């Protein structure tokens, strides 16, 4: 079994410094890896990234993250990523990583994702340049996840890590009017094509925890306001003969 801890949307600012770390001291007893599903910061500043780095460095398990839309707000995403990497955190964007665990090799493919909406009610590459740009960026974000998944070598368990949601089910609870800004059906298509074992995302604070892709891949919304805990824990591969 590979033990995955996952959480997103911590939105750390000075007022929350140290609050999350207080629950992570014994994380190695409970998990082999910690996945962070973006919106680590509140406003996307380098100063907030320093708080994030302090929160998640040296936890005793690998920490893998994608950024979220809040982390881009201050136009310092590259700097934020560098600060996190300096703290030993793996930052994914259209890329992947493999974590060796006692339960097997875990592959994590990550991309922030973007809005677009869902099949039949999505944004389209049609009309004004701004509309086309929005839709094309949504498609490109799914292409980035595809690239990340395809870059993985053979692993025992494959997990997709995004900030935006790949399915509608985990948005239930959010106003339907904003679903197109919260999720993107093409992310789910990438997840299904790659045969993931689990897809983790955040972003939908008022959404629901559990969903599934059309291809049967479990989807979990780990936005902290949804899971209402320091992290959610998933034991992957149970019943597949791994210890």
């Amino acid at each position, binding site marked *: 079994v590979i*033990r995955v801890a996952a959480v997103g949307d*911590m*939105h750390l*600012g*000075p*007022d*929350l410094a140290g*609050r*999350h770390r*207080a*629950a992570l001291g*014994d994380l190695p007893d*409970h998990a082999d890896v910690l996945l962070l599903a973006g919106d680590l910061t*509140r406003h996307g500043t380098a100063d907030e990234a320093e708080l994030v780095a302090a929160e998640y460095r040296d936890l005793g398990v690998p920490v893998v993250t994608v950024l979220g839309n*809040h982390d881009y707000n201050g136009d310092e995403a590259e700097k934020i990523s560098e600060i996190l990497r300096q703290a030993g955190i793996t930052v994914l964007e259209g890329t992947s990583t493999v974590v060796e665990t006692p339960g097997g090799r875990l592959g994590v493919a990550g991309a922030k994702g973007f809005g677009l909406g869902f099949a039949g009610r999505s944004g389209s590459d049609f009309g004004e340049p701004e509309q086309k740009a929005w839709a094309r960026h949504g498609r490109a974000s799914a292409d980035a996840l595809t690239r990340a998944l395809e870059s993985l070598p053979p692993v025992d368990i494959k997990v997709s890590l995004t900030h935006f949601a790949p399915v509608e089910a985990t948005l239930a609870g959010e106003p339907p009017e904003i679903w197109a800004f919260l999720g993107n059906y093409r992310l789910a298509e990438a997840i299904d094509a790659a045969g993931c*074992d*689990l897809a983790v995302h955040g972003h939908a*604070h*008022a959404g629901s925890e559990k969903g599934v892709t059309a291809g049967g891949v*479990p989807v979990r919304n780990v936005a*902290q*306001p949804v*899971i*209402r*805990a*320091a*992290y*959610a*824990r*998933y*034991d*992957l*591969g*149970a*019943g*597949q003969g791994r210890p």
Partner: protein
Amino acid sequence: VTAEPSTDDLRDVERALCESDSELQVHLVAAAGRVRVKGRVASAARRDEVLAAVRERVGVPVDDELQLDDETLSRVPSGSEEIP
């Protein structure tokens, strides 16, 4: 706004919170000359900022009914989910 704010006034305040600081989970209800501030914010500090912004805009007493997300940020989960 000096009298009890109208529903439109309150929607304007909600809209300002949403558009200025992406505060999507704050909802206002007027009752008996007061405004109840409901929903969720990240922390006590953020709650204070939101309440100050609401007070400044509505001009009547404000009741804090906000919930704080950070109250669960340090809660270690009691179990795990098995995903085969």
